[in-house]
């Protein structure tokens, strides 16, 4: 029989893994909610940010938890510039073109990484990689705990930006009423770029949280984005609380299903839940009814 001694740690571990999923999903859902496109470059940007964190550590000797304060603004700028100067102009205002441009972009980024760094898998060695906190009945891995706290800090920061700043209000306005926003003097191209920048900054943060315990190769980000996409649909397309909660749920589901079905089948549970939720609530947990 499964005792709580096994079940509770699995649950906690699931929550902590789910936090990183939530961050990746947060970026994806933000971009979807405003630009109404699935950002196919999300995975490639995550990979690129993981490489950035890898080299910040190996070349400059900066710990990923410090590097995040450089890499996330840097990736905000990269995301902003990509949308403003590449994706936006190349799509001529057509949403479906935007989708294709992000797809093209992901191919370019992945191949550039492959060309530059080959397919080798790389890891970094940080002293705290295997540190744990003793809770008495179980141990918590420190890097996962950091990730868990980080996702709430990021979600809170995003919420504050969205509700208290003019650019945040403008982002929400553009999401639902582009024409009205233009007439209020809001520069839609700028708002799109800021949103894409914020989404990209989210994956950069996720990358820095992952690097201490994970590996990077030119396609490392893809696995996360596939799960993140599931979370975005599950939580409701464009919903920030949906992404956070959905991320945690999926983390737990994955952890419990590896416990019951074995490691290799861990992700099967995700897709079972995914299908089950969509059957009952097609708009997702937090999505508005169509």
């Amino acid at each position, binding site marked *: 029989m499964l005792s709580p001694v096994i079940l509770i740690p699995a649950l906690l571990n699931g929550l902590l893994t789910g936090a990183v999923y939530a961050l990746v999903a947060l970026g994806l859902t933000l971009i979807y909610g405003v630009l109404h496109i699935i950002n196919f470059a999300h995975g490639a940007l995550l990979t690129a940010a993981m490489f950035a964190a890898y080299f910040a550590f190996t070349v400059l000797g900066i710990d990923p938890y410090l590097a995040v304060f450089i890499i996330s603004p840097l990736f905000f700028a990269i995301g902003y510039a990509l949308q403003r100067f590449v994706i936006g102009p190349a799509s001529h205002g057509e949403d479906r073109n935007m989708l294709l441009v992000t797809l093209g972009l992901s191919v370019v980024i992945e191949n550039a990484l492959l060309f530059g760094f080959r397919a080798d898998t790389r890891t970094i060695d940080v002293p705290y990689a295997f540190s744990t906190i003793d809770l008495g009945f179980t141990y918590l891995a420190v890097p996962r705990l950091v990730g868990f706290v980080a996702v709430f800090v990021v979600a809170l920061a995003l919420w504050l930006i969205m509700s208290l700043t*003019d650019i945040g*209000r*403008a982002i*929400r*306005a553009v*999401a*639902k*009423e582009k*024409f*009205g*926003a*233009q*007439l*209020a*003097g*809001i*520069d839609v191209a700028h708002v799109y770029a800021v949103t894409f920048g914020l989404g990209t900054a989210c994956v950069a943060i996720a990358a820095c949280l992952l690097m201490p315990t994970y590996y990077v190769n030119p396609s490392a980000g893809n696995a996360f984005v596939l799960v993140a996409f599931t979370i975005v649909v599950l939580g409701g397309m464009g919903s920030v609380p949906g992404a956070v909660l959905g991320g945690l749920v999926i983390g737990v589901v994955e952890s419990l299903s590896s416990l019951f079905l074995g490691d290799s089948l861990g992700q099967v549970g995700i897709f079972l839940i995914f299908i089950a939720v969509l059957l009952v609530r097609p708009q997702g947990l937090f999505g508005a009814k169509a």
Partner: protein
Amino acid sequence: MTTETLLAVENLRAGYGESEVLRGIDLTVKAGEIVTVLGSNGVGKSTLNRTLSGIVRAQAGRIRFEGAAIEREKPPAIVARGLIHVPEGRRIFPNLSVRDNLDLGSYARAKPRRTQNRERVFDIFPRLRERVAQYAGTLSGGEQQMLAIGRGLMAEPRLLILDEPSLGLSPLLVEELFALIMKIHAEGVAILLVEQNVVESLEVADRAYILAEGQFALSGTAADIAADPELKRTYLGL
């Protein structure tokens, strides 16, 4: 009333892709005037408004606002100049509170005076004050129209374009609306009014233009236009 020209449009041409909607428009609005543009459905009144506010690109011609050529400017720059367009169909932000909607009205202009202007809007529309935290999408149609106008006023317009503001309002509210237009005008704001309520519009306006087939078929003082038999023929189709 001063005679300073606020808006001067010369030989303006605009449309969508291949189809030309405006085929050489000449229009002026002087400071402190109410000018109304009338015309049947689909004739291009809203297109004219969209071209003035930079949403639709002018294909030819000139638009001068307070002496500056604005026909190549983008909407944010035009809004910053004080040419404010309250569009047909309200276009408020349904997912934002009444307060956030108003605050975004001062996104590009008059931001330092946001708080006092918001109070001013609430004085004009007390119903908005009662609903300050409500999502705009849950307001009634009439309240949404008040919000749309309020959002426009937040930018301290020099010229306020109102595109069919009475659409979908009850007769009583239409009365109120026209009283309000006079009130805004009395504060020194010039108004370009596009309306289906021909009679009321001609009553409040100083001058009027009748748009037909991409050009102004008729223009003159509101009183003259109201008396012109041509109005009934070209506009009302009688």
